[in-house]
């Protein structure tokens, strides 16, 4: 069964450094998402991406964050200058398409644990 994959599984970085988290969505999916889960807290929506542009973003997704689909398979989340509070598990998800009667299920990757020191 196709899966969403994410690399690396664990990233440690120093405060102020840039990090790029990588995701490979399921190949025929058109919608891509990033979520964040701070340890012990709920999963929070960050951003969605469709047709090479951001479709929707939350208040968490400020100017320090950006997303990109640099080629036909990867979907990346970049944090320009990491802060201690960016330490969290970051999940990528993808779905086939939206709409009534369509495939609305989001498939999640295993996550990247980001630790900012």
């Amino acid at each position, binding site marked *: 069964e196709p899966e969403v994959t994410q690399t690396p599984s664990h990233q440690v970085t120093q405060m102020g450094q840039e990090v790029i988290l990588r995701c490979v969505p399921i190949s025929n999916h058109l*919608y891509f998402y990033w979520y964040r889960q701070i340890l012990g807290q709920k999963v929070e*929506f960050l951003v*969605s991406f469709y047709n090479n542009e951001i479709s929707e973003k939350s208040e968490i997704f400020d100017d320090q964050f950006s997303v990109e689909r640099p080629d036909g398979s990867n979907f990346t989340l970049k944090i320009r200058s990491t802060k201690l509070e960016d330490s969290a*598990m970051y999940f990528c998800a993808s779905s086939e398409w*939206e*709409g009534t009667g369509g495939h*609305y299920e*989001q*498939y*999640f990757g295993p996550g990247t644990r980001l630790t900012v020191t």
Partner: protein
Amino acid sequence: AQTVTQSQPEMSVQEAETVTLSCTYDTSESDYYLFWYKQPPSRQMILVIRQEAYKQQNATENRFSVNFQKAAKSFSLKISDSQLGDAAMYFCAYRTLYNNNDMRFGAGTRLTVKP
């Protein structure tokens, strides 16, 4: 804004017994989707079951079933014949019918299965 509430931070069940996890949500919309996701220690979230709000029939998937009470905005998950592999964090989630962008999650319920 839609919110999802899971009032049970932790639950435990004896192997082979039945357990019910609670979830309530707040929305002004009439059509939407509800989901239960399982997050085992490996941390990858797996969809357990989904319910379309416009369907009156409660969804079932093998040992997993839901009790969807639309008027009460309640969406509980029942796990029958609990197995050790069911131990995980369970998240209830809400998504509008017309926007696949934003899934709202509850805080989660940690389920422990005792042998």
